[in-house]
């Protein structure tokens, strides 16, 4: 079975294509808690078991929380996060989320999925894409295709009514990444004209902005400075997230958190938030301008501006979008669901399921690809480390282009072709993808030329062919970076290591969630209240041990009732 997965910074979702009498449709699969969204959070319990999703998120602010979130931002880097006794890379954490989604589908349909289409931000670079692919493989899924998030959203949007569409713009502001794509639909063709983005901008940054703004006045006694830094940050960011949601509904919201029984709180107004987020709002414009420029489309001639991603719910962001485009955006697709649904549709297309009349998607490569070169500068010195583009950004893929380069030194015996991806004129500002050494016959400088051909296919795989016309020698390189090489050796070992991590049984998810929540409340409150929470939690644990379903249900209702009440009216 082939599933579609939206692996998000904040939330993830899984969907599948289902045939029915009216043709077919993409449907989201609920998780063990019955929710369609699973927070992208992983927590390691003191007993070594791992928790994924809402329960993990609950543990984030605990003393020994050992919870990781927003790890999508670290994809493609070597950074590891320590949870409990173990260290995890971003791709391993992502794999744990993918495994949990996979199990949700297994529970829902009774069949274990083996293949997946996973979405990535359009502006993810090659390394980040490879890391995502590896995460899929670590989770035991064959990744049939990586599809760009705005493209997936466009598919979901376009298939709502299957109408022809003049170019429209997908504005995808997620938890950690921002993408803009310009898409056109006609005659069953979904054509992405241009994509641009900022893979360091998302809802998380708005949370940080709020947290930075209030920290001083929230905590005059420096209580936050006395606890573990990571925990303080987790508490602040969680509170900021609540405030942000509050501000989506009203002009003022409370920013509150509790440490060791002390409740800190302050009010944040919408205008204060707006002032604080001004820099972030300004960063939204750049990718939009770039995408419009690259596709040579006037903002006025866009047929729609489609909003995707949870962060587009913020009134602040909507206001900015309305101003940018001089019109109200279209919110007819569910900002959190569209991407996963689009991935499922793509999955249906790959599996050539009936019910999906033939649709073709053509995408672009949003980054410039090229090689490192050197040249003689005006002062007679040699300037090294320059970037010579071969495939310009926003070229339709698949594409094959070549460039001719020649030797710089007399008697040069080899040319080192270093491949980079990015927009900077100097390679130091770009992402290194790989390199190959090409031996050439020693001749005076400039007399040996090589022909470098880049072939980029529709799933984002780059192949480099170098030919030396003088000798007729041909060299080929399929870009595999360091991590990939390492990974192919120990992918199996890592997969086994991950599988060996005990995951909490699915059927216990609700109870785990409740326990985590109780634990959090226990840490937040003091005195009598704390004693009551502790008491009820113990009763619940005893009920769990008894394995009597009725007793468990009663105790759970009891405990969650108490927690609901406490959270609704926090005792000061």
């Amino acid at each position, binding site marked *: 079975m082939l599933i579609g997965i939206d692996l998000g910074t904040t939330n993830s979702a899984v969907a599948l294509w289902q045939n029915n009498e009216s043709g077919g449709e993409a449907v989201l699969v609920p998780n063990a808690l019955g929710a369609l969204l699973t927070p992208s959070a992983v927590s390691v319990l003191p007993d070594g078991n791992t928790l994924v999703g809402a329960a993990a998120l609950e543990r984030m602010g605990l003393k020994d929380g050992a919870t990781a979130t927003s790890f999508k931002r670290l994809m493609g880097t070597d950074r590891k996060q320590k949870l409990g006794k173990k260290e995890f890379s971003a791709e391993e954490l992502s794999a744990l989320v993918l495994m949990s989604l996979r199990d949700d589908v297994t529970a829902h349909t009774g069949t274990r999925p083996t293949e997946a289409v996973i979405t990535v931000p359009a502006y993810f670079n090659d390394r980040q894409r490879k890391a995502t692919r590896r995460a899929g493989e670590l989770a035991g899924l064959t990744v049939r295709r990586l599809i760009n998030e705005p493209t997936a959203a466009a598919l979901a949007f376009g298939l709502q009514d299957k109408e022809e569409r003049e170019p429209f713009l997908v504005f995808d502001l997620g938890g950690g990444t921002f993408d803009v794509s310009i898409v056109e639909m*006609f*005659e*069953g*063709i979904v054509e992405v004209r241009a994509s641009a983005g900022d893979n360091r901008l998302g809802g998380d940054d708005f949370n940080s902005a709020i947290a930075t703004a209030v920290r001083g006045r929230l905590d005059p006694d420096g209580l936050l400075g006395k606890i573990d830094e990571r925990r303080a940050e987790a508490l602040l960011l969680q509170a900021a997230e609540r405030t942000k949601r509050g501000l989506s509904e009203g002009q003022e919201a409370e920013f509150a958190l509790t440490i060791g029984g002390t409740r800190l709180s302050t009010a944040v107004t919408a205008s204060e938030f707006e002032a604080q987020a001004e820099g972030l709002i*300004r960063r939204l*414009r*750049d990718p*939009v*301008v770039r995408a*419009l*420029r690259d596709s*040579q489309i*006037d*903002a*006025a*001639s866009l047929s729609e501006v489609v909003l995707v991603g949870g962060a587009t719910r913020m009134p602040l962001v909507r206001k900015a979008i309305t*101003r*940018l*485009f*001089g019109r109200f955006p279209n919110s007819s697709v569910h900002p959190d669901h569209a991407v996963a649904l689009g991935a499922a549709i793509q999955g249906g297309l790959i599996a050539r399921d009936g019910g999906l009349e*033939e649709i*073709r998607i*053509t995408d672009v490569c949003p980054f*410039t690809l090229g090689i490192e070169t050197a040249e003689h500068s005006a*002062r*007679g010195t040699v300037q090294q480390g320059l*970037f010579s*583009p071969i495939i310009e*950004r926003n070229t*339709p893929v*698949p*594409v*094959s282009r070549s460039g001719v380069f020649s030797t710089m030194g007399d008697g040069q015996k080899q040319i080192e072709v270093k491949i980079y991806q990015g*927009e*900077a*004129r*100097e390679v130091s*500002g770009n992402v290194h993808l790989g390199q190959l050494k090409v031996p050439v016959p020693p001749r*005076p*400088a*400039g*007399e040996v030329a090589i022909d470098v051909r880049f*072939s980029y*296919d*529709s799933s984002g795989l780059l192949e480099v062919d170098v030919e030396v016309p003088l000798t007729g020698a041909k060299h080929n390189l399929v870009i595999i970076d360091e991590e990939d090489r390492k990974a192919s050796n120990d992918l199996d070992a890592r997969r086994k290591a991950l599988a060996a991590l005990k995951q909490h049984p699915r059927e216990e998810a609700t109870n785990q969630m409740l326990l985590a929540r109780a634990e959090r409340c226990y840490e937040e409150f003091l005195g009598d209240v704390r004693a009551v929470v502790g008491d009820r939690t113990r009763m619940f644990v005893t009920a769990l041990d008894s394995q009597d379903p009725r007793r468990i249900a009663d105790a759970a209702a009891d405990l969650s009732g108490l927690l609901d009440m406490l959270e609704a009216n926090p005792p000061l």
Partner: protein
Amino acid sequence: MTPTQAWRILGIAKTPELGAIRRAYAERLKAMDIDKDVDGYARLREARDAALRWARMQAKPAMKDAPDALAGVADLDEAEPDRALESLPESETSSWLYAAPAARGEADPSLTTRLGDTAPKLDVTTGFSAAQAPAEQAIGVGRDPFARPVLLGLEATSDAVMPAWAHEQALHRLLYVEEPQDDEDATPPPLEGWQEAMALGHLKAVLRHAETVSVTAFDEIDNWLARVLAGAWPRSAPLLEPAAAVFGWESERGQVSERPSVAFLNARLRGLRFREKVLEPKHPLHKAWVELTTPAQQGSRKGWFVKRADVEQLLAGVRKNFPEIEHHFDPWRVALWDKPEGAGTGEGWFSKTRLWIFAAILVFQILRYALADWTPEASNPPPPVALSSSEIAEDGKAIQGALDRIFGPEITLEGLKSLQPDLAALFSANRTIARSDGSDAAGYAAKVHDLVRERMYATALVEKGPLLADVQRVRADLLRAARKVGGAQCMALIRTRRLDPQVVVPEAVLSAERKLAVRMLDASQLGPPARIAPGTVSVPGALVDKVMTLSGVPEDRVRKAMDGKGSDADQCAVTIALIDAALAWKGKEREAVLLVL
């Protein structure tokens, strides 16, 4: 791709109907596996785009409003290659406005590009057309801003009183000086205090407006302002920071797609900031900055209180990172500090000469002191700088040898001293240096010969006329001789004005050179060389043809070589051929070409 090919690939008959083209494209696309047939896919897309362009062009005459005119420009350029070629140089020059002071007083060409060439021509008096400003405003207010002179910046600029386009216009008028300039190269004066305040006011209004409009309009204002500020540089300097902050120009820095005008402004922005910082006395390189910016005169010395390392760091740093602020330095002062190893570039040879002259003066002084201190007491060892009589005789011989080689036997050092004293000093000083280097008489002669050749060449560039032709004729012969050894040696002579020691110059050339040198010496034309500035010239096609015949290099390589690219051998051959061809040329470009070679 020709239109016929496009229709054939799409498999339909020529049609202006967009829907039919898209349908045909979709059918073909679905029938192919694009991953297996990458080239086929590229061809199909190209065909579709060409067909759509053609179809839109058919539809265009019907609608003539501004946005379509804009879209039309792109269409025309691509659909009709001939026309695109013709119009290209035009748009090129207009995007490089700051390189073309001739544009002053006329309509701002950047506005033309902002509008697109097919937009109604600009009203020269206003610099704006109806399409430029929002239509209703332009019509309501009228096209002639002189009708409301009060609005042009003399009053408080409030949005209510003045529409955004009027701010743009006022800004433009402040930045571009209207009075005709006699001297094309003269930089416009900086903004006076009141002008600066007004310009900033208008700029703020323009920026405020930009922040409230849609992305497309924002992008247009961004492009327009970048060109206007770049074009009016350095007059526009005070406006750069606020504009860059709003449009995020610096985030574009170093990108492949950085717009030329933005690249120009970014370079200046960084230079401005660095200069501001270094002007503060606390800056570690402040003293070095003051030293290098103080004008030097003949006989000036380096400042005493500056660390050599600081000056070198500043000089290297500025040259590497902010070349555009090097003009603040005094060239003579820089020459005092510049390392001799800096040779090999246009400025390097110049500073090297200066250094040698200073070395000469120093050595003379040391000698004088040495002689004054020297007493005939036998017990005292002679000071280390004193020369034995045999050494003095050897020096005399070496100098005369060099003079023989360069001017012929009739010129002696004494004679040279009376005719051109600084050149004579140069000869002596270099002899001293040569001795300390351990280089032989031949090496010394070659070195001073290079220096004399440099002076001949520099003077010829200033004197022009027949002298320039004579010097270039000799130079072509020298280059030919150098080429026999190799292209690299030939290019070294062109670039560094040093003749490689392996090069054997035929006696005939040497004697012609000698005659010319004596002639110039008699006319006192061998004084310290003026600075040789690199220049450009457009070479007439007929001359290029001649160069191709003379050099035997094919056209594309000739063009490359003229651009300073291509192999050394080509560049050398082309330079020689160009000198020969220009010398035989009767056209008016003759001198201009000879001047840049």
